[in-house]
């Protein structure tokens, strides 16, 4: 029985980690796979680190949360500190290379640590608003939980109504998936 792939996405509110987790989960479900996604939630309306727990497999998923992720993605300095606890010897730890002052907090027990310039690529090549979609591209490439075309279908389903009004947005989002995938391709 192959085990479910366990993914943690963490960032500041507004970075869109929950949307990414939800879209990946829905893409996996559409494909007929088992998926479970749960956000952290509390009484804070703002100010907390946003963490998404996502599992995708071929058997019914067990507990909604887990101790160690197969891939842990941290998108802010606070997210790096918050997600260290989910890293183990089999974890690929991904963080944005633009985050400053976290050198001492980067986990040393990971299978692999992967800094990627997602914020920079979003700002300079695409658009800051697709930053989270770049991350999504990187996550699905690194884990193989859903194929890229499925991810694009899921984005279409979610944002299609916006694309109707502005077709350039579609292209921007799909490019973001591709660029995200490129950032991790060949590194794993």
């Amino acid at each position: 029985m192959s085990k479910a792939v366990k993914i943690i996405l963490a960032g500041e509110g507004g970075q869109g980690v929950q949307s990414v987790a939800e879209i990946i989960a829905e893409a996996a479900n559409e494909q007929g796979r088992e998926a479970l996604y749960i956000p952290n939630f509390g009484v804070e309306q703002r100010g907390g680190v946003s963490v998404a727990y996502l599992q995708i497999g071929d058997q019914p998923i067990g507990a909604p949360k887990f101790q160690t992720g197969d891939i842990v993605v941290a998108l802010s300095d606070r997210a790096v500190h918050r997600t260290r606890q989910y890293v183990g010897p089999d974890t690929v730890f991904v963080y944005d290379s633009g985050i400053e002052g976290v050198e001492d907090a980067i986990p040393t027990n990971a299978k692999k640590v992967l800094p990627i310039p997602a914020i920079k690529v979003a700002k300079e090549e695409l658009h800051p608003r697709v930053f989270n979609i770049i991350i999504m591209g990187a996550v699905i490439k690194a884990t193989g939980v859903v194929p890229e075309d499925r991810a694009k279908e899921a984005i279409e389903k979610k944002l299609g109504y916006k694309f109707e009004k502005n077709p350039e947005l579609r292209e921007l989002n799909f490019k973001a998936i591709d660029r995200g995938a490129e950032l991790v391709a060949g590194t794993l």
Partner: protein
Amino acid sequence: MSDKPIQGEKRVFMTGNEVVAYAALAARAEIMYGYPITPQNEIMHYWTRMAPKYNREFLQTEDELSAGFTTLGGVLAGKKAFTATAGPGNTLMQEPLSMAEAMRLPSVVVVQQRGGPSTATVIYSQQEVTLTTLGGNGEGLRVVYSTSTHQELFDYTIKAFNTAWKYKFPTFVLGDGYQAKMRESLTMYDPGEKGIELIPAEAYLGKPGTPGVDRPPAHYRNTYNVEEELYEVLQGHFKDYEKMAPEVTEYESFGVEDSTLVVVSHGVVARAAKEAVRELREAGVKVGYFRPITLRPLPEKQLREAAARAGRFLVMESAQGQLGRLLKEAIFGAPVEMIPFYKPGVGITSEEVVDKVKATI
């Protein structure tokens, strides 16, 4: 206007709160009464969004006391009525639900447990087990289903209405904040198409005919002048409850026959236990899994058998021994060692179950 919110079978991917709203629609619930509290708010939100399309109703009350009592009012009027709550709201709900026990009103309550005591966290716990099974100034004359998957949230919400209207005891679906907020797949269906007969509601008051001549008088009381009269009425309730117990009791277990240790858990924690016990058994570890689905009444007979076979229970729950206490009462005198693994207000992962079993066995 379609009468059936769900046609055929439909695989969906949604939050547990949304599942409950759909299940209540599918069960032909006619009205929800409610007061918002996290983490169950979206049950109300989805219900109010969908209800008008299917001629169903909703009333928001000023608090949970009122939500509970208006639910009973709906039932007295012959409506399939329900409410949903959590935490401090569940505390307030016990007063009306105690009246439901007294007057045998088939009210349905969905609880999504949050941390306690008091406001504590809005997130998750299994700390409302004592309250939900035995709350109120009464004897716990109620049925409590503890669900563990979205499929079960759907199935047991439908079942809760049938249990309530068949046996006339208040019936609870006990979920939690994780189940409320997480998304996973399930298959929704119309109960009728699946061969599930929905027991119709009937009015308690205003029935045709002359009371005492054509039919027994509708005499629903929660007040008695004489001690002996109360005693006598309660004996009738206890008898009905005892007769019902074997018919509604549900549990799930495997690997109990050949094990010297059985992991006992309920609700969402049972997901971790199930995954861990399966994995351990595949690796040759002799450990069993037992999960009561009804926390009230508990599957006492099967628990006693499992206790006698294995000799040791590892009791795992997100509370400081609330399930543990129920188990001790249910199997009092059985030759079993109860090993606690209690994490009040915090989730339990399958990794933790594996580690604890390995350390214990």
